[in-house]
């Protein structure tokens, strides 16, 4: 039986814990929302495009976008809400690009449907801009080969998987998720790394994402052992 190759560097699992910071900024119509989306810090855009995912990680896949939720449910512009829900977040590697796409989508809609600007919320239903403050900490889990990696993935918290798959890629600005990065750089598992990188994690629940990752690695372990 062949043993699995050891990584050049072990994978260290980190996790993140966040606290919402209020900005005191609020919007009561589309124009105000758009103006503030253009100027708020990136951590605010990050919060409103990822909060749903973190707070409702047990639910069936749900577009993690507060702007879309508010525009659909409160402003009543379902078509624009759908356009925002449908933004394919995984194709953007920075918050800046994601923000620009949100702005473009709203501006295009307003141009086609200027009457949308006439809609105002009831008092108490305004959109409140919130910023995410993240604390990143190392967990006791590490992995030096695929077996250890798979075992650790089954034990770490969902927040840890969240950190490596979402936050590291988009917010920390690495452009790629940490798992793929390590698999390729330290284990030369390029095929597996690509498979993980090509997943759309935004369409999974967090538990389902964990399951999918574990299955992909398991398959790779079996195929390596058969060689």
């Amino acid at each position, binding site marked *: 039986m062949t043993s699995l190759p050891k990584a050049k560097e072990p994978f260290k699992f980190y*996790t993140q*814990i*966040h*606290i*919402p*910071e*209020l*900005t*005191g*900024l609020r919007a009561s119509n589309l124009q105000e929302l758009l103006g503030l989306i253009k100027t708020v*810090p990136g*951590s605010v855009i990050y919060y409103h495009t990822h909060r749903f995912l973190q*707070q*409702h*990680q*047990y*639910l069936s896949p*749900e577009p993690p976008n507060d702007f879309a939720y508010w525009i659909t*449910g409160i402003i009543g512009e379902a078509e624009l809400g759908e356009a925002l829900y449908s933004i394919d977040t995984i194709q953007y590697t920075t918050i800046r690009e994601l923000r620009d796409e949100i702005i473009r989508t709203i501006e295009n809609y307003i141009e086609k449907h200027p009457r949308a600007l006439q809609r105002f919320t009831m*008092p*108490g*239903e*305004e959109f*409140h801009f*919130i*910023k*995410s*403050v*993240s*604390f*990143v*900490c190392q967990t006791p889990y590490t992995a030096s080969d695929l077996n250890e990696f798979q075992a650790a993935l089954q034990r770490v*918290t969902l927040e840890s998987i969240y950190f490596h798959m979402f936050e590291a890629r988009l*917010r*920390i600005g690495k452009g790629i998720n940490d798992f793929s990065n390590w698999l390729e750089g330290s284990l030369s598992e390029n095929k597996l790394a690509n498979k993980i990188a090509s997943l759309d994690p935004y369409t999974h629940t967090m538990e389902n994402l964990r399951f999918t990752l574990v299955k992909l690695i398991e398959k790779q372990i079996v195929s390596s052992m058969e060689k």
Partner: protein
Amino acid sequence: MPKITEYEPIVGPNTIEELRLLAGKLQGKVIQNINSTAVGGGVAEILNRMVPLLQELGMDARWDFIKGGESFFNATKKFHNALHGKAEEITPQMFEAFTETSQRNIDEVKLYGDVMLIHDPQPIALIKKKDSMPNSKWIWRCHIDVSTPNKQVWDFLMPFINHYDGAVFSAPGFSQPLPIRQFLISPSIDPLSDKNKDLPQETIDAVLEKYHIPSDKPIITQISRFDYLKDPVGVIEAYRLVKKRNNCQLIIAGGTATDDPESTRVYAETREAAGNDPDIHILPIPSGSDLEINAIQRASTVIVQKSLREGFGLTVTEALWKAKPVVASSTGGIPLQVKHKYSGLLCHSVSGAAFAIKQLLSSPEYAKRLGENGHEHVRQNFLLTRHLKDYMLLFLCMYHPEDIIYL
């Protein structure tokens, strides 16, 4: 009082481990809480749970009080109501009483914390000591809904608030444009308290028997004090619309304050609206009867919270924790807890509430799924352990101005 390890089977070992890790990062820091009373009211209730648990996690958390006489507390009671948006006459004498007592407290209360956590407006003026404690971080924890505050009172408090290092509010809508950092910390429920812990079926049955509630038909319940803002008469109207098609009964249970004429009036009006319907149970339950409230919630088929205005809506949190399908108004903190069609149903009117209740009574599988989602949502976001975590992160934020912090 439950130990921190007793929460582990509910929230998982990782959550408790995370709390220990954060507590470790705050070693050596003294956290001094200050409020105006040791007993009575929501703030004292939270601190009574929170301070011992923080200590058990290894933190040096302490709790002190300010003192005040009748005129001071009369004034702060009026301030409290006015900040909530209630029409109150605020006189110059009230501001004087506040200032005078505050100065006495500034002179007499021993302040020593590395992090000073000041709760609500009563002790807010202690911030005047900040300059003499240059290494301390000062946080104002506002437990009040200040979304539409009385301007006179808010303007009076602003110079104090602006001098703090940070402020904390319970819902996004409560925040105001301020020159200091503001954090969002939602309230929480304690899953091990009498009001929320699991109950044996015999206890639930005994409470139903005590109040003569048969268990032969579905029970719709609203738990709330008798207050116009909780719209108990609207709940009865919704029940009557439901009753046309679905055989069911209604419980409206909650406290009445004998010294509050409005509460007595609302109770009388609710009784009158109920008429002679034997399926409507109006139950004035004295405060402190937590086990009974728990039992009634657990015996219910659908729980309603048809408030016209709401703070955070902890009765909704309690219902969701018991995996009950909830129909609630889209107001205050309720939309933070109930995501329409995922963890309950939101409504805006009597007919909307009735329609939602009928949906849930007629589709028990759907109702069960909403209840389960609601339970999980509360488990992950609104339990006491999350509250502890948020406070520790808040303290750490005082030492880290960045958006991403590596611990």
